Each structure stands twice: as C-alpha cells, then as structure tokens.
C-alpha cells in the first residue's frame, strides 16, 4: 500500500513539475519578445553599469583576517610575507590566552588585575589567607574561569610557587 501511495505521489509531483516548466517556457518566450524591442536601451544601460563598475574605487587597504566563509567560495590563502610573523605570534603566546571572547573580556581582565592589586596592598600585610580567599573567589565567581586560571599567578600572589599546599578554598572551609 505504502509503496503504491509513494509511486502515485511521485507521479503527481512529476506532472506538476512538467506543467510548471511549460508555464516558465511560455513566460520566458514572452519576455524575450518584449525585451527584443528594447535591446539598444538595455545595451546602453549595461555599458553604463560596466563603466561604473570600472570607475568604482578598488579596495587597496588590507582587509582583516577572514572569518566569514562559504562552501561555494574558494577559501582565502595567506600571502607568503605575513606567514612567519603571524604564526610566530600565535606560537609564542601564553597557553590559555588564545581563545578570547571579546574586547570586553580583555577590559574585564585589566580591571580585575587592578582590583586584585589594590586588595593585595590592603590585605596581604594583615592576613595572607584572607587575601587568598578574597582574590580566588572574586575571580572565580565573577569572571570566566579561563581568565582566572590563565592569569599569571605571580601577578596575583608572588609566593604561590613556594606554597605546596592544597587549594586555599579547601583550607579555609576545613578550618571553619
């Protein structure tokens, strides 16, 4: 039954396509007949448009790196003179810093660094654990983890290399 229905449906569809094609052919013959009378004008307009296209200023400024692409277009290729410098820039960057979200992300990073620096000046002479606790939670809960964990820890706490302890969060919670 199902197979028969499918066959019937396909037959109907093919008939409809044929009628559509016929209609298209009729329309195209009409339009070609009407356009044949106005060919000189059309030629003039075509010439004008081609002249305009030639007169349009060509983009000479280098475009940014391509981020929009299509399967139907040829992918862009980097010119040889920028290859080494660009790839060296990527290779030499610090791990964890290449996947960035936006400029807002960098801006937040800068604010955070300044804030932590201020907190360090106030809290660190008084109580190291409190400072550690504040800075870790501040960064952990308000900014993305990538920022926190890829921030140079020496900037936040210069002594972190010497401390071979479990995470400060755990210590503080256990103490309570």
């Amino acid at each position, binding site marked *: 039954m199902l197979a028969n229905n499918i066959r019937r449906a396909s037959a109907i569809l093919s008939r409809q396509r044929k009628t559509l094609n016929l209609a298209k052919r009729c329309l195209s013959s009409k339009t070609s007949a009407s356009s044949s009378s106005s060919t000189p004008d059309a030629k003039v307009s075509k010439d004008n448009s081609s002249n305009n296209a030639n007169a349009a200023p060509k983009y000479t400024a280098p475009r940014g790196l391509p981020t929009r692409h299509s399967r139907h277009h040829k992918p862009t290729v980097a010119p*040889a003179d920028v290859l080494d410098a660009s790839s060296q820039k990527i290779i030499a960057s610090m791990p964890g810093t290449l*996947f960035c979200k936006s400029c807002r992300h960098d801006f937040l990073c800068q604010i955070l660094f300044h804030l932590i620096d201020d907190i360090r000046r106030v809290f660190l002479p008084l109580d190291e654990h409190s400072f550690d606790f504040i800075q870790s939670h501040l960064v952990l809960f308000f900014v993305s983890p990538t920022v926190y964990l890829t921030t140079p820890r020496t900037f936040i706490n210069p002594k972190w290399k010497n401390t071979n302890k479990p995470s400060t969060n755990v210590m503080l919670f256990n103490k309570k």
Partner: protein
Amino acid sequence: MEEYEQALNECHALQQKVEYLLRGYSALLPGSMVDIASDSEEKTSTSGNSDGADEIIGKMMKLLDRMEQEGKTYVELRSKFRSQLARVSDNANSNANADSNEDAGVPIDENTSINAWKMNSLIANFGAPPGPTSTMYDLILDAIAVTVTTPSSKTPLSLLQSSRELHAKAAERYELDAKAGTEGLNPSSCPTPATFNAVIRAATIGTEDEEIRDTAIENGFYAFNTIYHHSVVHRNSSTYKYILDMIGAHFPPGEMRGNIVAGIWEKAVQDKVVDLTVFEAMRKVGSAQHGELFDGWWKSVQGQFEKDGNGHGFPIVWGKNKKLRRFDKRFDTY
C-alpha cells in the same frame, strides 16, 4: 552541550586564522591541494618564501601543536574550575554535618583520589578539545604526501611517522566527540576522505630503504583499514588508486601481489568507485606477470575497456559513486 558550543564559539576566530595561515604554507608546496586550487595570480603572491618543503611542514606542525596545546589547556582549566566548584559545594555540605561527627573525617588520600577521578571524568567526557579542525590535519597530511613522494625529500621516514601520528590524532578527535555525544555539534572534528587518502598517498613513496618501505606499507594498510571500518567516511576512487600505487611500489610481482590487487579491484567494484584513475593504476600494476590465473582474469577485464565509452566500457554502475564520494567534487586528488 551548551558549554561545548560556547567553547567552539570562543575558538572559532582562532581556528579561521590558523587555517588561513596553514593554507598559506600549503600554497608554497607545488602540487598541494591549495596550490592546485589557486589561480596564477594567487600563486605569484604566495611564492615569496624560500624555505624548503620540510621546513614548511615543520612550521605547519608547530602551529597545529600550539592549537592542540590550547585546546588541552582549555579542557584542563574547565575541569579544574568545575571540580573546584564541586569541592566547594561538597565542603559546604560536609561543614553542615561537621558538628555532629567531627572525628569521622574522610582520609586525605581518599579525597585526593576522588578529586583525581572527578578531574579525569570531566576531561574524558568533554569531547574533543576545541581548537584543531580536520581541515588543519588534512592540509598538513596533504603537504606531507606531496613532499614525501618527491625525491628531494630530506627526512622521508620521520615525515611518514608524523603522517601516521597526525592521522591517529584526527581519528581520535572524532572518537572523543562520539563518546561524549557531541559529534553533531562539531562537524570540524569529523575526518574527511583526505585524512585517510593523504596517508595512503604518502605511502606510495618509491624507496630502497627497508625501514621506509616497511613504514610506508604499514601506514598504507593502516589507513585503508581505518577508512574501511569508519562509520562516516567511505572509500572513494582515490583511496583505491593510491592503495594500488602503494602495492605496485613496494610489493614484488608475483601471485601474492596478483591476489591482493585483484581483491582491491573487486572492492572498488563493490564500492562503485571505478573510474579512469583507478583503471590506470590497476593497469600499471597488472602489466607485470602475476601468474596464469591473474593474467587471464586481467586480460579479460582489460579487454572491456574503451577510453571514450560511457563508463569506459565497464558497467556504468561500477562508477556510480566516483564523483559522489570525492573530497572535493572538482578534484580527483582525494
């Protein structure tokens, strides 16, 4: 899933940048995918670099390594962050019950092992680390295949070994995604026919060194086996062309080679990918003496061939998938 999508979004710009650079390096190698596809104007703009092919491949691999490192770092950091959050919530729960049984604390070793297990499971269940794409692997594998098969290659053995490693990494990424159930989200982790065919193409190297020959044979059959059992990628005309070339380059003529080659031809017929390139490769291999049985069979098959005929004289169904399964429908390279 949302986290995974976010990771892919974050790394997208960098992926495009690295692919753009890798295409630039690939364009410097004559005969590579990008070189074939590029126009003469583009070729003149990309011909300023004077590095050797091996150095260019080294630079491409460094870029890919950096991408892999970045992806691993991302996954590690995410797992650390998640495990820290879990630890905070665990501690909060345990502190609530701390007053009732203070002495019944869990030993430190057990805690650390649980945390390590959590970390491992977070890393394993994330899927393929974001960053590298199958296009990057394909470009490098193609560059290796193009370089190794030329006689000017300085380090063919190490290139063959790295070709195998890269291929394994590309296949592993898809497996990781399939394991985590994210393969639908990340199509760039799925290998392509070029990922397999480039390894087989590199194995067609003509050499007299036994070590290089053995590595090439191993690589060729390894890639053929993996594509044969792959759930997504299917064999195409180039797969059979290169495997026939590889057999012709490394196996001495005889009954054994005849049997293998006949088997491969039958598989190509079954896959419906027989085209002119496969026939030419088969004719090249089959021209030598392989015993009475093979020679008689091949003579009868070869007799059907017509250069200008529809389907080249063979049943049209034999070449039904020859264009459908190509890596790029415009080129028959992969």
